[in-house]
């Protein structure tokens, strides 16, 4: 043990378990305190949890709280699983379809603009074919956690564009699920073609099975999970989520999509509302660990070497989101203020970009994706909310002729 200061001393005397506990406790505490400071000036938590990881990691000067991200190993995976389980739990296809054609059109426009520019950005950066595919997802999908929180904190829940905005986020979530299902075979598809085909089929069969259970198996699953007791319910649903994620990983699709579909299955049962409430503190805790651990793996030196690609991606994403905002506002006959609100709110990037990057790095893709995504998320998760809170300034500069109909509610 070479750690300096009192924390190093603690680490040296506590044995293996003690060392890991100190690492975890210090990590959460530092992340929490930093995020609390950021909250005062209206910053979201995700980039600050990650920044805490960068600062506390082995690549920066100052005390090293956690030397090896692997110390947090299983906990960070739990963070990823619970993030997607919660997403699956909240997601409802019926709500999406009830939103009507305008909403679907707006979502489709958003995805088309952002993914095509994302693919273009990826190929300009030029790290390889698979890398381009992953970068498209990283820059294409907004952070539903930050967008949701932002709308509540900026007091925009009663605005005319808010339903549309959240609808676009839901369309993104659907896309994310499909994208995750398709991505893993692509990422892992380096071995012989025959083996790949059977493994892909096995994965697809498993996913279809989960979709079928979500559609028709609500009653037995509900009976399995339903107890009046919150303690037992928590143990059962967390167990189910982790089990499904684990089986998904074993059959060659990602644990992320497994967890998402597990959430979808639970969403159809009568315990859904209670699980929604019970999962939140668990998700918050383990997701913070996940973001922190992602930060640990980032070397600020590498961050500067990918500054060019990050700058390019940030610029392209900002333009794409504003264009999508204008088109979405026009579809619903809303004005410039709504367009700016949509574009700048949906600009926030966070958990999904980081999840995709960690899957890519784990699959052995170009290692620069790690620092690239860290830099990209740091910029947009901080600049996005700040810009959204001043969207009226941007709205003032939007050309009037973009909005031919007068902006009635």
């Amino acid at each position: 043990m070479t750690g300096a200061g009192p924390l190093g001393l603690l680490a040296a005397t506590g044995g293996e378990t003690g060392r890991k506990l100190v690492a975890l406790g210090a990590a959460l505490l530092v992340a929490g305190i930093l995020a609390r400071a950021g909250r005062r000036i209206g910053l979201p938590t995700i980039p600050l949890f990650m920044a805490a990881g960068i600062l506390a990691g082995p690549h920066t000067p100052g005390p090293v709280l956690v030397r090896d991200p692997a110390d947090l190993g299983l906990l960070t995976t739990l963070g990823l699983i619970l993030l997607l389980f919660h997403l699956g739990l909240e997601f409802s296809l019926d709500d999406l379809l009830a939103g009507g054609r305008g909403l679907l059109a707006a979502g489709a426009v958003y995805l088309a603009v952002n993914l095509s520019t994302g693919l273009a950005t990826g190929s300009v950066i030029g790290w390889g074919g698979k890398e381009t595919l992953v970068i498209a997802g990283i820059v294409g999908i907004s952070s539903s956690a930050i967008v949701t929180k932002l709308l509540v904190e900026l007091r925009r829940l009663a605005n005319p564009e808010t339903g549309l905005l959240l609808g676009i986020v839901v369309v993104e979530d659907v896309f994310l699920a499909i994208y995750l299902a398709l991505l893993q075979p692509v990422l892992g598809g380096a071995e012989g073609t025959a083996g790949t085909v059977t493994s892909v089929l096995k994965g697809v069969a498993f996913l279809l099975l989960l979709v079928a259970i979500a559609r028709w198996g609500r009653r037995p699953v509900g009976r399995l999970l339903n107890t009046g007791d919150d303690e037992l319910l928590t143990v059962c649903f967390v167990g189910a989520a982790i089990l499904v994620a684990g089986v998904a990983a074993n059959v060659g699709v990602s644990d992320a999509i497994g967890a998402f579909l597990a959430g979808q299955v639970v969403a159809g049962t009568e315990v859904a509302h209670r699980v929604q409430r019970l999962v939140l503190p668990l998700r918050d805790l383990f997701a913070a660990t996940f973001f922190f651990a992602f930060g640990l793996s980032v070397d600020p030196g590498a961050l500067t070497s990918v500054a060019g690609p990050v700058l390019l991606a940030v610029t392209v994403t900002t333009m794409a989101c504003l264009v999508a905002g204008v088109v979405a506002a026009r579809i619903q006959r809303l004005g410039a203020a709504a367009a700016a609100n949509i574009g700048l709110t949906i600009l926030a990037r966070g958990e999904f970009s980081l999840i995709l990057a960690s899957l890519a790095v784990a699959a052995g893709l170009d290692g620069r994706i790690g620092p690239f995504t860290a830099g990209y998320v740091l910029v947009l998760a901080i600049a996005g909310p700040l810009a959204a809170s001043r969207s009226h300034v941007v709205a003032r500069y939007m050309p009037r002729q973009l909005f031919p109909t007068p902006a009635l509610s």
Partner: protein
Amino acid sequence: MSEQIREQELPGIGRRYSVRADGGELSIVIHHSGRRDVYLSDGTGRSAPAVATLSDDQARRLGAVMAGAYFQPTLTRQIEAVVGGLLIDWVTMAPGSPGAGRSIAELEVRRRTRMTIVAILRGDDAIVTPEPTEVLQPGDRVVVVGRPENLDGFVRHVSG
């Protein structure tokens, strides 16, 4: 103001109920956590809304208040129900009421008004099917049954 309450799902947040009220667009957002946000805006999103946040418990109490569970805004006729052409109503005695200080028998309620007093609510007491000797007092809430067209005569004769 007869406009319906509009309902919209806010995925990941909860549900929104909006109504165009006198003075602006009133929206209630019920979060999954139970938190309620009450927005009063101009409905266009151009100017900042006034927002109040309530806990689940506060919101339920406030909802009961608005529904009139604690206080009914009408003064003398508080409950009025017509069952099969028969009216059940409720009048409150004032100190200057013609019937105050007199018994039901003295007032000859049934013969002169064709209405029947079925109960008297006095403070926390409920006197069900009072005796003819019962004296009506100021503050009594008198529950009567009869034909709707006879109510006005009863009011003139008893409560004023």
